[in-house]
């Protein structure tokens, strides 16, 4: 039984192995890009919209509203990064219903890669919005004694981000695989549905948490108070 798509290798060239994770990632990327391109090449500016354009607009507006709600800022600069996190994870998890497909998010390599992106993006956005000095100061607040804990917190939440997504998706896949061998009919379908729900929730959680981290980096010193978003963030399952 294969647990991670990393172990399925289609082509090996030196150290680089073209495994299922990368292939299915490309598939998801292709679907998202192609779909977007097909719809957006003929965008209407009149009040009469095509259904697909309407769907995309609902998605984009929904993401923008979520970002605005969480960050209390203009969503413009964060939309591509946070929106893509959500759309990629959601699409990767959604395709799980297709037999033979293995979600790239079920690989710890993918989730780690995404978590690293968030880990890097937080200081990038923080420095971009306030400057390096002001951003780095928040590591020694309220006292310089807190520096190691702040750094540890930064790293641990990144690890948690990666492991949470991986664990949820992988567990879903594993459970379905185990159940298939025990009760081959009906019950795995229910678990698949549950897996779809979990996948959507995880996509939402991942994107929202990324936004919360970015928002805390960009707003904490503007208010001169400890970041409140970190205390208000959604409970992590």
């Amino acid at each position, binding site marked *: 039984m294969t647990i991670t798509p*990393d172990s399925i290798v289609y082509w090996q060239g030196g150290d680089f192995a073209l495994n299922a994770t990368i292939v299915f990632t490309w598939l998801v990327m292709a679907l*998202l890009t192609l779909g977007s391109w097909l719809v*957006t090449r003929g965008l209407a500016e*009149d009040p009469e919209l095509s259904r697909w354009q309407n769907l995309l607009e609902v998605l984009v507006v929904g993401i923008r509203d979520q970002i605005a709600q969480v960050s209390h800022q203009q969503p413009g600069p964060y939309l591509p990064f946070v*929106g*893509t996190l959500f*759309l990629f994870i959601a699409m990767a998890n959604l395709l799980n219903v297709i037999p033979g497909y293995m979600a790239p998010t079920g690989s710890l390599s993918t989730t780690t*890669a995404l978590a690293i*992106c968030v880990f890097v993006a937080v200081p990038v956005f923080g420095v971009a919005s306030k400057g390096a000095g002001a951003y780095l100061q928040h590591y020694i607040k309220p006292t310089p004694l807190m520096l190691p804990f702040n750094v540890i917190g930064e790293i641990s939440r990144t690890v948690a981000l990666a492991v949470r997504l991986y664990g949820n998706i992988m567990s879903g896949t594993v459970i379905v695989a185990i159940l298939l061998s025990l009760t081959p009919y009906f019950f795995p379908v229910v678990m698949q549905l549950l897996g779809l729900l979990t996948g959507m929730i995880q996509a939402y959680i991942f994107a929202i948490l990324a936004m919360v981290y970015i928002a805390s980096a960009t707003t904490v010193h503007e208010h001169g108070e400890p970041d409140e978003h970190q205390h208000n963030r959604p409970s992590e399952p």
Partner: protein
Amino acid sequence: MEINWITVSAQVVNFLILVWLLKHFLYQPVIRAMDRRDQKIRNRMDEADGREQEALNAKQSYQQKLASFEKQREELLEETRQEARQTRSQMIDQAREETARVRSHWMREVSEEKTAFIDGLRHQSLEVVETVIRKALQDLADERLEERIAHTFIRKLHELDEETREALGRSSEPATIATSFELDPGQRSTLTRAIHELVGADLAVNYTRAPELICGIELTCESQRISWNLSDYLEELTASIEKAFEPLETTEPGV
């Protein structure tokens, strides 16, 4: 649960590429389209607002025009009514005046006719009475009528009060006796004698003819006047006849 770091780096690259791709194919076009649509809708709303404002202005101006037109019409109507009233009252006044004129004319004619009728009647009456009396006196007595009249006059002189007699006696002017008929000298001397007996012999007496007395005799001296004639009786008769006509006048409608 192992991490393939090469795969991780590949996924990082993949993710960044996806971010770029979606930014170019999804977010930017969609947001741009939405913004443009918003702008378009806003423009249309502005345009619609402008048109509404325009329509409102037009409506207001039309209403004003309509109101002024209505006012003007009302004024004209009122003017015309006023004129009509004026003309009507003028015409009524004219008609009244005309009626009054015709009526007064008619009344005058009636009254003239009446006067003429009364005059005629009086004249006729006098003639008839004179004739009748003459005839009656001639038939009844052998003396002439003039003689009887002279006698009656003399009797009347005798009946005069003291005051009149004294007034006549004091008169410096001569007394004039007018008769409707010619007195013969005997009658004249009788009359003169009678007068002298009554008021004194100083008073001179003249005799004249006065046909307007019809049938009678009259003495005038200064402001005194003593007479007996049919004319006086006829005056009375005329007065009574006129009195008889008076109810005729009152029954006529007043103006």
